């Protein structure tokens, strides 16, 4: 961290200004927001304090601009915050006109204290804290303004708004914003806001693993706000009112873009590019669009018509979708001949990785790959139930396979995982529901040999494991226990331990770099491969991730392709890496209230049916849950160095 001229971030004052005794910052450096790489800021003001990097910074101007930005987020639903900010703006305005006095400084401090202590939401309680710092530590600048020695200059300021939940969200959705709209019974506007960053709201509102909820400030108070279910409520409300269409592009552009793969990444890129006016064609090898959302997630988690409705809305703004069309060769040259100016590869990761057990390559009947199993099931293939199935793996795919088998009618469904419950990557909610449905879990074991007779699986020889020291994933490494082999008899074995991509053939003259994991290498900011005009993203770049990751990639790739075709440059924002976003200097009294629950399909009714298990919120329930949101908006304003 470069030495700062001054910092009051998180209440720890570091004052290196001329004439002041240099104070060594005690303890570790506290991370504060930093400008994007390559850019420099003279000073920044954020919810936890003031940071000055250059003595030339205009602190009064920065304070005024911060107040203006903060005023935009003041919702007016409590008296003190909005009026308090207005009064502070009026006072500074008075000072600038030469009508201020020293007494105004004391009054500003009193107002700031009042707003911080009495505001209704987390935003009001935290927003004015740094203004107190600027008045306290840069008092002479304000006095100079009052005396007319200094003038208010118009500088170039930038502003970023975030929140703990927003920063955790891969797509950076305006979560307090869409929750606020639900709280005010404005479901349509809430859905519009959601769709700015997430074009599959009904899907994500059902299947997301919600990193936002894990980051929610309320998690430390009572329970996180049910952000995912609120997103679902906005989508469901729209469907109940007939399902509104998406707006199309305002103008048309000449260029056309080819997208390979109609999964979430491809769909999000297609939607955004089309909105910018480009011609878009998606090539999809399967009979349906949707990618993993269509062929990986079972219907009891994501009803088919929800996904189809949202795909349909995207198509209707003028996107050409060619299903059952596999792109065998990835050649931009060929595509250019067909009239395309750029291509986005988003083929996902649809091939199951192997366990490494003896006999897995023999093609035995009754040994299947989990990804293929779910895909066939979702494409309508009938699976005959047998007595027993073991599913190998600990992620959501394994859980999906197991819970699907329960519904197909297998008597005995068992999950085998080589580590313990603690290390299992599957979400807690999935594991709990699976346990309710009678799925058995066996930890710390893995198959070493597939046993078969006459080409049909009869069982698996497994070995027990112990947990040793952590591996690259940070989880404790499973170590086989010598001599602990035992046999499990079974009719079907499903392996669901990982996924990799099947990439189209890449001609030598247009070589793009593939990593050792079989994923496509891209520039982390532009998503472009080694070949100009060829972009890639989603699971085929990152390895298996969640739907919202792919949607965000699609959004970013669209912007990047637009910049590439129009010779523009990508806008970059401030980063909050390492910054404690949850922390605010002073929090009001929060009444503890549990999250609103939803109904679940009775366990007895789940066997034999792929009917949706989790229910959604009614309008009133959604509005009530939305009231629990503390509105933890965090504003950062910085003065750019020229």
């Amino acid at each position: 961290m470069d030495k700062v001229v001054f910092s009051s971030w998180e209440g720890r004052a570091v004052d290196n200004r001329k004439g002041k005794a240099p104070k060594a910052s005690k303890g570790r450096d506290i991370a504060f927001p930093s400008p994007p790489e390559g850019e420099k800021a003279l000073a920044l003001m954020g919810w936890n304090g003031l940071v000055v990097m250059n003595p030339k910074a205009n602190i009064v101007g920065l304070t005024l601009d911060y107040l203006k930005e903060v005023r935009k987020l003041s919702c007016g639903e409590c008296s003190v915050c909005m009026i308090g900010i207005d009064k502070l703006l009026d006072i500074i305005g008075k000072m600038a006109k030469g009508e201020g006095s020293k007494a105004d400084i004391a009054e500003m401090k009193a107002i700031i204290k009042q707003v911080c202590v009495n505001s209704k939401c987390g935003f009001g309680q935290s927003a004015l804290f740094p203004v107190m710092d600027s008045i306290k530590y840069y008092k002479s600048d304000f006095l100079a303004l009052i005396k007319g020695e200094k003038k208010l200059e118009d500088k170039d300021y930038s502003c970023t708004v975030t929140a703990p939940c927003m920063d955790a969200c891969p797509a950076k959705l305006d979560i307090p914003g869409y929750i606020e709209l639900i709280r005010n019974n404005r479901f349509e506007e809430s859905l519009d806001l959601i769709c700015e960053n997430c074009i599959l709201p009904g899907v994500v509102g059902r299947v997301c693993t919600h990193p936002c909820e894990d980051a929610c400030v309320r998690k430390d108070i009572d329970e996180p706000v049910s952000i995912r279910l609120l997103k679902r409520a906005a989508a469901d409300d729209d469907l109940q009112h007939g399902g509104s269409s998406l707006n199309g592009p305002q103008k048309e552009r000449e260029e056309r873009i080819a997208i390979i793969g109609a999964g979430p990444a491809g769909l999000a890129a297609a939607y955004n590019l089309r909105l910018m006016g480009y011609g878009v064609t998606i090539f999809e090898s399967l009979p349906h669009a949707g990618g993993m959302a269509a062929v990986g997630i079972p219907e009891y988690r994501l009803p088919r018509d929800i996904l189809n409705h949202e795909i349909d809305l995207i198509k209707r703004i003028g996107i050409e979708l060619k299903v059952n069309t596999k792109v065998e060769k990835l050649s931009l040259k060929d595509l250019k001949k067909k009239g395309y100016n750029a291509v986005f590869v988003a083929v996902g990761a649809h091939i199951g990785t192997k366990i490494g057990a003896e006999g897995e390559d023999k093609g035995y009947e009754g040994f299947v790959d989990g990804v293929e199993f779910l895909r066939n099931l979702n494409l309508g293939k009938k699976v005959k139930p047998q007595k027993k199935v073991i599913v190998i793996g600990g992620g959501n795919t394994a859980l999906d396979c197991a819970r699907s088998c329960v519904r197909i009618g297998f008597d005995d469904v068992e999950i085998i995982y080589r580590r313990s419950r603690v290390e299992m990557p599957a979400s807690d909610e999935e594991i709990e529901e699976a346990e309710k449905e009678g799925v058995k879990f066996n930890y710390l074991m893995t198959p070493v040999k597939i046993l078969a007779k006459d080409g049909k699986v009869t069982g698996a020889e497994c070995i027990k494991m112990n947990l040793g020291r952590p591996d690259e994933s940070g989880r404790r490494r499973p170590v086989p226990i010598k001599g602990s082999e035992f046999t499990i008899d079974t009719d079907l074995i499903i392996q669901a331990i990982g996924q990799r991509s099947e990439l189209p053939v890449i001609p030598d003259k247009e070589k793009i770099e593939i990593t050792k994991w079989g994923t496509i290498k891209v520039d982390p900011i532009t998503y472009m491969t080694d070949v100009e005009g060829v972009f890639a993203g989603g699971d085929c770049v990152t390895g298996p991730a969640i739907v919202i990751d792919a949607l965000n990639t699609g959004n970013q790739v669209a912007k990047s392709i637009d910049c590439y075709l129009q010779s523009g440059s990508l806008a970059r924002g401030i980063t909050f890496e390492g910054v404690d976003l949850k922390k605010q200097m002073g929090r009001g009294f929060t009444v503890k209230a549990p999250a609103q629950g939803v109904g679940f399909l009775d366990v007895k009714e789940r066997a034999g049916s792929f009917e949706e298990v989790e229910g959604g919120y009614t309008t009133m329930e959604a509005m009530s849950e939305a009231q629990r949101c503390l509105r933890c908006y965090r504003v950062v304003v910085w003065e750019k160095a020229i």
Partner: protein
Amino acid sequence: MVTIVIDGRKVKAKENSTILENTQELNIDIPTLCFHKDLSSFGACRLCMVEVNTNGKWQLATSCNTSVEDGMEIRTDSDRVRESRKLTTELLYYKYPMTEAVREVARKLGVQTPEEKGESHDCILCGLCVRTCREIVGVSALTFQDRGRGRDIDEPKIEFNPNSCIGCGSCAYVCPTGYVQMESGGDKRIIWDKVFKMVACKVCGRFFAPEDQLKYISKETNVPFGELTTCTDCR
């Protein structure tokens, strides 16, 4: 029932009741502007502040929407409470100096209110109209207009949806400042700039209710419209 302490006095309180419900029962005077006993609490005006201690720390909290917990201690008249209420009133008065409802609170809490020429009927964003329309009437014709990121609206305000409004006038009744105006004259009623056709009582001929309101009642109760066209006096 739980036991709480209000101003040093041990009191039995119903579980999940609010602090304000209990102080009102004890006739302790706490100022409010956005509170109504028949509506959900909103915590907008910030006047009903009290000090609360549940975990060893005294914190300011709005009494209208803070539920009591067993062992909770409450101070309704400490220096900190009085200072908080006064500063809040000063801010309200700063923004709405000509609105009588605000002036009344200001006078009560010791804020100087010099004589003003004329009177305003500002909307103070208390939300009483919104909550009434949603919770009592049930048509949700009024909502807060959203602010939030990217919305560069100068002033937050209450938004009116003419398609949902039935012209009942409950919002005008509950508005503390007179911002919501209802004009009634002859066979018309005008509220939120929407004109409603009034229905005349089939007995006495007096125009007594908007047609839209009677249609709404008929739809909700399944009572035929024709049976609703008698005014309350003539029933």
